[in-house]
């Protein structure tokens, strides 16, 4: 880990440990926007890790963004931090200015497309984007779509959309945004050869880091609980059956962290489609198994709203399905592997 990343890691850990309290998450679940926390996150430069310094960002890498995204997952931070990271990167990498404030990205499904059409000297945006993360809270929406035979990145004010609110299992906003010939703030051809489904792709990337972070929390929390909770006269963690289950959780946690980190590194190198598919498929599987073991270890107390475990497990159950579940990503990955052929698998793996 380089020095910048160590500093970043310290900053996010301190900030989230101090500020993302149980009360704050509970309050966010009732619909309150934790503005003071958002301001602190923004002031610490956590939302623009990939925006060049000349544009006011941190000028960092996806590797740096990974540290933030994983910590955001570990602490169940109820803010669109990763959405803003992706949105600000899509804009800056396409040569557009990045507005401050919370951002979101759309559309979230692989095949969904919004329509950009020319209107005079500008552009208009049309179409419906369902389950947009933090839609109501975002100041702006960054969209990727095809127009005039090219992949385009567009920026629209959220106020230009009609919002129908909804939520995921963790009561994070997942809103439907309807654009009807809405004005756009800026449009540019997508940078770096981004595909038309870039939002889906990079959305899956950042969710994989959040899930890996969530699993970090589950492993620590469940291991800790097993050393404290006593039954039959001893800590439940001294029973082999509990130890074996926690070892399985450890394996999935390690795999999730590695798969996600590998995908972020690939994103720094360019084409990360293979590694993102590997990551979302692998962490999605780990999320289900991990949540199940963590709950089993905690017994009835972990099933209550009172205990903080559920802030993370409910997120994992939603996050693993967002931007493509592990089935969808596995199929995507399997098709690409089949297309290259069996004999290309090992050379491909070792070249990445």
């Amino acid at each position, binding site marked *: *880990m380089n020095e910048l990343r160590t500093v970043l890691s310290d900053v996010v850990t301190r900030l989230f440990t101090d500020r993302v309290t149980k009360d704050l998450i509970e309050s966010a679940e009732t619909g309150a926007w934790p503005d003071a926390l958002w301001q602190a996150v923004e002031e610490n430069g956590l939302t623009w890790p990939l925006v060049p310094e000349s544009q006011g960002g941190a000028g960092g890498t996806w590797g740096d963004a990974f540290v933030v995204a994983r910590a955001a997952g570990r602490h169940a931070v109820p803010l669109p931090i990763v959405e803003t990271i992706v949105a600000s990167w899509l804009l800056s990498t396409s040569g557009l200015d990045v507005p401050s404030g919370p951002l979101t990205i759309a559309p979230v499904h692989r095949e969904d497309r919004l329509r950009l059409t020319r209107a005079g000297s500008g552009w208009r945006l049309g179409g419906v984007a369902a389950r947009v993360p933090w839609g109501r809270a975002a100041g702006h929406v960054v969209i990727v779509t095809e127009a005039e035979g090219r992949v385009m990145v567009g920026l629209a004010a959220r106020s230009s959309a009609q919002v129908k609110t909804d939520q995921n299992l963790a009561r994070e906003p997942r809103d439907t945004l309807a654009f009807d010939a809405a004005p756009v703030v800026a449009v540019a051809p997508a940078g770096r050869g981004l595909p038309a489904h870039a939002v889906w792709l990079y959305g899956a990337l950042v969710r994989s880091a959040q899930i890996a972070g969530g699993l*970090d929390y589950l*492993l*620590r*929390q469940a*291991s*800790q609980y*097993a*050393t404290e909770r006593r039954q039959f006269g001893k800590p439940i*963690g*001294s029973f*082999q059956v*509990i*130890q*074996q289950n*926690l*070892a*399985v959780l*450890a*394996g*999935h946690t*390690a*795999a999730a*962290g*590695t*798969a996600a*980190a*590998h995908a972020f*590194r690939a994103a720094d190198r360019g084409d990360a489609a*293979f*590694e993102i*598919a*590997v*990551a979302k*498929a*692998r962490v999605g*599987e780990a999320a289900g198994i991990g949540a199940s073991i963590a709950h089993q270890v905690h017994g009835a107390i972990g099933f209550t709203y009172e205990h903080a475990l559920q802030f993370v497990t409910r997120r994992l159950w939603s996050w693993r399905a967002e931007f493509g579940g*592990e*089935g969808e*990503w*596995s*199929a*995507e*990955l*399997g*098709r690409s*592997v*089949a*297309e290259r*052929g*069996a*004999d290309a*698998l*090992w050379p491909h*793996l*070792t070249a*990445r």
Partner: protein
Amino acid sequence: MSVQTFRFELGELPPEAEALRAEVREFLRQELGDAPPVRRAHSWGGFDREFSKKMGARGWIAMTWPKRYGGHERTALERYVVLEEMLAAGAPVSAHWIADRQSGPLLLRFGTEAQRQKFLPAIARGELSFAIGMSEPDSGSDLASLRTRADRMPGGYRVNGTKVWTSNAHLADYMIATLRTSFDPAKKHEGLTQFLVDTKLPGITMSPIIDLAGSHHFNMVVFEDVFVPEDMRVGEEGAGWKQVTTELAFERSGPERYLSSFALLLELIREVSKDPGERAAATVGRLVAHLATLRQMSLSVALMLQAGENPNLEAAVVKDVGTTFEQEVPEVVHALLGLEPTIDSGSDLQQVLGFLMQRAPSFSLRGGTREILRGIIARGLGLR
């Protein structure tokens, strides 16, 4: 929270290691040519002395050892690349594998100068094959309960007892045997000592233990008043436990712990590529996601070892996750295709499936059972 956890940092193979890869691939292409998939599926089970000598001639055994012992003073990462290429290709590495991975490093660390001079150069040339004599009829996972005795006598030791599950003992030149030199019921971990035992010594009787598929890899090795000279003792008397645990820790995270079913994955992809439906594609993709992740985890441990760290917990995690994966592959192929597994008829896919289905139970037994590994992981988590 005070709970400890593990660390998997991504690593990168240095250019010299990657440069070696192409050379190894070309060698394997020539040596293995069109070896049938079911032969490749034997993975590190294939025993071929001629192949091992060629490996030795290339300098691909004893890669990290000092030159004065016949080694090549290359990095652990270059060795890692050679290993993973060998295993991915299904090369028959068994004749030098144990010596390269365990016995040689053991002698380097704990052996006498005379032992190093005598054994290491021959191992490096691929001419000496080793077996590991640990398990006994009443000692499997509970290694501290070993009973085969080595009693002091003038000039050496007299050995009596029985070793079992000794892979390739009938083919190996030497065995590293862990024997009991003293016994205190309160301190069973003490009193164990390691020896270099010539498998041809008088008093040693070997009999095959045939595995469930009808193959002969395992042996029962009976020692009756076998004289082992003093200078064949490895390390101090009573240091055996410490030496054995060091030895095991270094063999847990290698590519052999997740690539055992790689040949079957390749045949599955070959089959599915013809017409990849959604379900087949998802099945292949899921396995590849596991495989790609395991390779990065294993590599991460290799880099920690190269950096002189002691990633015992991480190594146990890789082995547990890796063997779970390689054990799952035949089940997944069966669930997807429902093909009948075969022995020497049918398609390559059917034969590889048949072979690995019968081999798979051993993946989570050898080198420390799944339960033992998970106990090690639990200790690393602070639970015991």
